[in-house]
């Protein structure tokens, strides 16, 4: 329930960030980046996030980001971590390169797992 509410709030934020009407029904569609950008983001996830979290996101200097490792994590916290980083750790803020909807898409992609996809 809590996660569901976080997602709705997030979707609303995402929608308003793009200057589009914040209707919950259209949120998912609006949040998804275009397919070319998805490919870029997926590459960034595997290779740039992967330089600390491992190319298969099984962990490295940073923690594992596998579906199992993320299953109890709150959506909004994960997107906030991507965008703003974590002070006093090696996790940098990515908001100069990644928008909120894109961060949300990355979280959803991580939850599916990247092990076998190229």
């Amino acid at each position: 329930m809590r996660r569901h509410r976080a997602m709705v709030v997030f979707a609303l934020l995402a929608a308003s960030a793009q200057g589009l009407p914040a209707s919950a029904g259209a949120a998912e569609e609006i949040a998804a980046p275009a397919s070319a950008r998805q490919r870029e983001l997926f590459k960034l996830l595997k290779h740039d996030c992967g330089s600390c979290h491992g190319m298969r996101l099984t962990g490295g200097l940073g923690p594992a980001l596998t579906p199992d490792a993320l299953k109890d994590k709150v959506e909004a916290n994960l997107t906030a971590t991507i965008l703003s980083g974590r002070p006093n750790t090696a996790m940098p803020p990515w908001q100069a390169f990644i928008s909120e909807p894109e961060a949300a898409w990355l979280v959803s992609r991580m939850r599916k797992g990247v092990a076998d996809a190229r």
Partner: protein
Amino acid sequence: MRARFLDGIPLLLALTLGACAQMQPRGTGDLGVVIERESGRVQIVENSGRTSLGIVDGLGDLSHASVVYSRDARYAYVFGRDGGLTKVDLLMRTIVKRVMQAGNSIGGAISQDGTLVAAQNYTPGGVKVFRADTLELVADIPATYGPNRERAKVVGLADAPGNRFVFSLFEAGEIWIADLTDPARPKVDKLTNVGRQPYDGFITPDGRYYLAGLFGDDGLALVDLWHTERGATRILDGYGKGEEKLPVYKMPHLRGWAIAGDTAYLPAIGRHEVLVVDTRHWHEVGRVAVAGQPVFAIARPDGRQVWVNFAFPDNGKVQVIDTETRRVMRTLEPGHAILHLEFTPRGEAVWISARDDDRVLVYDTATLAQIAALPVDGPSGIFFTSRAGRVGF
């Protein structure tokens, strides 16, 4: 007994194949390995004619893979992210032996006498030591620290004279020196409170000084391996002078050290600078402003140039520093996602991996012009066999 029997097989094969006209005996001095990080393969290359000789497949997750060489420069030990340690025969282009030795690993080292190979692991945190010939485990050194007996991630593993291995514990802020003179009973000297979050380390080419870069502190930890009883000292303390560090999108790598004459060129963390350090007194003597956050700063073997690559988002550039003027003499844009560079043994050329272009590019270091390109699937590390005889490689 079994090991001895297996040892004979490559020789037998070599003799059999040697009889064929195509298969002449050859040396390994101009050979190397290029990692194809995503496909779990390595290419065996040669740097005289700049060609690929073949592919060895089945090495697992090769993100952050690194390689050390047997002292006869025939075998490459490839350390994979997934904890796989694979011994590859460069001449036969086959896997001789492969073990899964940990859950998450980032590299390794080979001992001074060439008999031991050590792997540095994140999960479970520690160092495992294997016989170089059989990959049989001979010592397990868990990186346990603090009152709660936690395990730290091990970074910056280097070989040191006296069959020692030196490494740093990321969470613990410690540097350990393990003496493997008697491999069954390693003697471990632990230096504590060296600084917060050492993220990588390297040893000077003479094997005397070990340095660890600190992520959580402004400076580096230095250990004089002639006098380990003196502990670690802080050098370049406060090089950021309390300034806010830029976001670090990729940790610098110190292992490819750049020592040119009496100076070392070190990537600054969280800054668009390369630090220049006097290696007699370990004082900062200058800084070079560069195009991004440096990842590798590597000296041409003669020390006249230092080549630098960068973290995301500046990872399409390579800069060449003239060590006489300490200025950037050329900015190159060799391709997309430049991950690594490796000089040929005497430095007339440098090989550069462009991951997103699926190419390795070769540059002439006198003219700074590109002279060759090899197709490689998502290349990362490039490792030539000239590493076999160098301390710290």
